[in-house]
Every structure is written in C-alpha cells, then in structure tokens.
C-alpha cells in the first residue's frame, strides 16, 4: 500500500514538473539570459476596498470616576469589527519567480465604536431612575506604509497567493461623533430622550503606530494586466492613543470621555488591477514568462 502511494505521489510530481517545463518552452530548452530576465517583473497598480476595525483596550482610562459603585462599570464597551471603513492603495511590486516584494502605500479610514452607560437610582423610590448612554464613533485616517512579501502558488491564469508584512501608519486625521441618549423614569413617567450628535476633531488624541500583517488573495491574469483580490489581517503592535494629549480635549473631557490606550486591528479587503512595467508589447503577455 505504501509503495503504491509513493508511486502515485512520484508520478504526480513528475507530471507537474513536466507541465511546468512545457510552459517554459519544452523539455529540452535550457535557461537562457532571456529566461532569467523574464522571471523578473515590476508591477504597478491600484487597489481599493473596505476594512473592518477592532480597537483593543490595553489600559483603560476614565473621566467619570465612581465613588460608590465598581470602577469597571465606567469602562467603555468596544464593538469589534462592526463599522466599515475604506481604503485606497497604490501598489508597487517587484516579482521574482513566485516571490514578490511589495510596498503598498494606502490611505485608510477606519471606524470603530464604543459606548458606556450609567444609571442613577433614587434611594427613596426604586422605580425612579435615569439611564444615560454615551455612544462614540471614532474615525481615524491613516497613511499606511507597508513592506510585504508575497508568494504566489502555481503559475496558472488564476493564482492564489499568501503574504506577510510589516507596516507603519502615519496619522492624518481623526474625528469623533458622540451621541447621548437615555431614559428618564424619575420625572413622572418613562421619557426616552436623545441629543443631537456632537462632532469633535480628535487628531491630537491619536498617534502613529506600527503593526504586522498577514493574509492572502488571488490574482487573475487578464491579458497583460493582473486583477487581484486580497484579504489581510493587520495587527496593531503599538498604542494608537497619544498619551500626552489624553485629556487635552476639553469638549470630550467635559462630556466624560477620554481615550484608553488602544491597539487597532483591521481586516482589510481590497480589489484592484496591476500593470506590468517591463516588456510590454502585443506579442508578449506578462503571464508568458
């Protein structure tokens, strides 16, 4: 049985190798200078897509500080991967055989939300209370500067690939929207209420950060261009909060909000098109190499 399996495996490898050689011009051809030249390629292209964000608190901070109830009740509750952001990417890739080395400067807007809720209850009437909820939506805009290594699997028209990389994100802008709502059960009935959203510029509250990324995708060679669809997970490795300016925004502090120390993770989904930068002519297709 083992011998039979080994025979099948070796036969499969031989067939795959033969197919590969056939694509390169026949079993008898040898690697020439031209072949080596053709194994290299530069790609330039654009991608765009959506991202989902997760803010992970590393150290919590609070303005509203409980004196007669547990401090954890003042902690913010973060919603993970709820809000869709978007990004646009310029991709510059050098490919050598199945390996690619890529930088993909990206303008990215990520959104994440968190909330906290407080309740004040009458000691004289247990039914009399005020519930107030603070909902925060944070938009952060970053310029991502990644360095990525890709490995393409196979050499067919449709090629899956895997990629890993490191990135540094430069803060461009940030803005926060605060919505306050609640239910008043202490004024003679049950009265839900809400306020107009307050929008506050929060660039000073955030900082640049770095992270690691891993993911995969698939490329489809269409004529001389390559269509790509990739999904990657970006894991923030450093704090995105500006520790020195944490309480500097009087408007947010007055409302009762302060940034925790956060790490930002993203699931990034992009689609785009890449153009080869070498040996473009009507008789040759980039996939022919």
């Amino acid at each position: 049985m083992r011998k039979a399996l080994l025979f099948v495996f070796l036969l499969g490898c031989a067939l795959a190798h033969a197919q590969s050689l056939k694509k390169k011009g026949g079993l008898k051809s040898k690697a020439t200078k031209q072949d080596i030249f053709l194994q290299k390629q530069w790609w330039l292209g654009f991608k765009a897509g959506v991202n989902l964000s997760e803010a992970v608190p590393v150290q919590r901070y609070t303005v509203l500080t409980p004196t007669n109830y547990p401090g954890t009740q003042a902690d913010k509750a973060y919603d993970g991967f709820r809000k869709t952001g978007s990004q646009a990417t310029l991709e510059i890739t050098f490919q050598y055989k199945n390996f690619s080395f890529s930088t993909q400067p990206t303008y990215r807007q990520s959104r994440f939300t968190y909330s906290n809720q407080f309740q004040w209850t009458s000691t004289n009437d247990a039914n009399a209370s005020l519930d107030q909820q603070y909902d925060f939506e944070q938009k952060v805009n970053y310029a991502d500067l990644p360095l990525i290594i890709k490995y393409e699997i196979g050499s067919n028209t449709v090629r899956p690939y895997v990629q890993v990389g490191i990135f540094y994100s430069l803060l461009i802008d940030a803005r926060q929207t605060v919505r306050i709502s609640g239910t008043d059960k202490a004024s003679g009935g049950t009265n839900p209420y809400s306020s107009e959203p307050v929008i506050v510029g929060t660039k000073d509250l955030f900082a640049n950060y770095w992270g690691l990324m891993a993911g995969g995708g698939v490329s489809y060679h269409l004529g001389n261009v390559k269509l790509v669809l990739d999904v990657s997970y970006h894991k923030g490795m450093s704090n995105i909060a500006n520790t020195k300016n944490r309480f500097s925004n009087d408007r947010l502090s007055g409302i009762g909000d302060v940034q925790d120390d956060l790490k930002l993770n993203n699931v990034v989904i992009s689609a785009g098109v890449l153009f080869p930068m070498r040996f473009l002519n009507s008789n040759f297709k980039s996939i022919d190499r």
Partner: protein
Amino acid sequence: MNRQLLLVALSAFAWSCSNKSDPAADKANFTRIYDNNKFEASYFPIDITQTPDGGYLMLGGRRLDNSNFSGVYLMKVDELGAFVSEKEVDSNNIDPIGPILTANGKYYFFCMSSVALQSQLIEMDANGEITQTINVGGTYPAAAAADNGSFLLLSYDNVNKQSVISLVSPSGSVSGSKGFSIGQGDAVEAPIINHFIRNGRQFPFQVGKALSGQYFFNGFFNYTFSLVFTDLTSAAPLGVVQGQQAEGGLSQVLPLTGTTYATARFSFGDNYFIPAAALNSSGISSSVDLGGNSFPELTANAPVKILVTTINAREIILYGSNTHSKQIALYGYNKTSGEFLGSKYIGFSNPFEIAGMATTADGGLAVCGTTYVAGRFPRICLFKFSREELGKVFK
C-alpha cells in the same frame, strides 16, 4: 556587525513607535468627575490641597435631607486622580468652609455645629480621616486663612450682629478677636443667613493678613459688604474699602507687594479684575473707584479665585471664575507688568463651576469644581494641568 546594527535599528524603530503608557503624563494632566449613582446625592467641593503622597485631599459639602445647611464631605484621591476614599461626616457638623489649612503636618478646616451653630475646628490627616473636633466658640464661621502656624477665622455673631475676626491656634484656643457691627435691622442680616443656608447669593467672605501685618476681612460692616482692615485691638477699623450694600464689593483679594493687591470686584452683577490694585488700608475708600477690566462673559457676581504661580519662569496671577456658558474660565496676568497673558476655558456639555485652585508639587495646577452630570446631578470634578500645558496657554 551589519546584522547587529540592523537589530539595533529595528529595536529603536519599534521602541520609537511603541507610544507606551506614560505614568508621568497621566499624573501631569487629567480630568476626573467623581460620580455617585444615588439620584438624590449632591456634592460640591470647597477646597483642594495636594498631600505629600502626591494625591489630593478635597473638602466639600453635601446635601442633607433634613436641613437647609450643607453637610461635610471629604474625599481623598491619588496622584492620578483615582478615587481612594470618601467620608460623609455626620450631620452634627455642618457648613464647612475653606480653605484646607495646614499646621504641624496636619490638616484643618472650620465648620459649624448643627445645634448651637458654633464654630468647630476639625483636625484630620492626609487621608481625610478626622482625628479631632474642637469647639472654638463663636457662631456662623464664614471664612478662614492660615497665619504663621495659627488660623484666622471670620465668623458672624448673630446675637450682637457683628462680623467677628479671630486668631485661633491649632488647639482651638482664641488668642485675639474683634467684632464689627454689620448694622441694625433684619434686612442687613437676611443675605448673610441666606448665604449660610445656601438659599441665596454666596458672598465672597474672606479673611487674611496684609503684608504690613494688619489683618483684613471681606464681609459685612456697617450695612455694606466691605474690605475691613484691623489690628484686632482697635475698636474701629483701621481702613475700609466699601462696597455698595450687598450689591457691590470685592470678590477676592490677594496681597502682592506693600499695599498692592491682586483683586476682583463685583458691582450690581458686573465683574471686574484688577491684577494690581493699590488698596488703602487706612481711611475709607470705595471699591467702585478701583475700576478694572470688565468681564461680561462671567456670571453675575461670579465667584473669583486668585493665586500666584510660576509659569515659564514668570510669576503669573491666575484668576478663576464661572462663565455664562457654564464653563470654568482661567485668566493669566503677568505679576510684574499686569499684562494679560491668556485664558483657558474648562468644561463642555454639562455645567461646570469653580470651587478651588491649588498649585501642585510638579509646577502644575489643580482646579476643583462642581459639575452637573447628565445636566442634573451635582458632582465634584478635578482638573489637573501640567506646567507645560499652562505654559502653552499663558505665554
């Protein structure tokens, strides 16, 4: 060698990007609102002081269910502003007054007994634990100040209708005292009593010592809210800076040099700051004649706090007060030239009112006040600003 250099460079890069939590920054700047989830709870601060452990001790008041007077509330927080402990002092002692006084490493404040309405001196430690309560005598304590290891106390004698200034030791013994008539009739007494039961205007009662060695108090004298100078011996005041009955007078005074004071005045609801006012400590003068910079943004007859601190290697007079937009406003003046250096507004969304300011060991500033959480629950708030932050505002 190249690999080692690369590792060092990568490590430096990662470290530079780390933006880790910064405990020093966390202590230097913070905002806290101390919340209690009881619907009926109501707290307001009166004064704040920094304790040797870097934390803060706050003296405050609280609403009592069965009295028009306010109860005594003490709170201790750590150097990050995190809540440590609180004490609702029993309602036998009411109407605490600031500032928090220090002598012999202990902390003191005055309040009033609930039945006899007599002045009480409370001794406590740096954690706000009360260690002694001493009956000082006299009624209706209104203001206090430190004086070379002793305390000055301004009180109101409702029997003889007098503003009384006393020199009190930390053991509670009174070594000197002098009373000055507020005038006859109930009409002149009514605003004073309303002040104590917090059912009317809060008057800026104050007591202190001038650089000349004379004592002064800011209170009612001869039907008028006035700044009165005394040597605690002479029956008549040495000098009086008169206000306009209860509608005008000085909001706060701080001796600077000689007869020069940093002061603020109120007049029929308007507010004026005079960073360098020459106050006449002999004879009679009028606060109206002091003029000053008008501040229409401040609430009518706004409370004013003044202190001198050093920012950017310059001595600066800081004024704190309340604005119509329900914020706390800080204004800075150069102590030497009187030049206006800048302003800072604190608070948003909910109303904020100033109670006290204190310089901190790191050269920063602590400001405590009252805010109304959810627009309705009076709670204590604390703002801490670093020296650098103040330096950016008061250039």
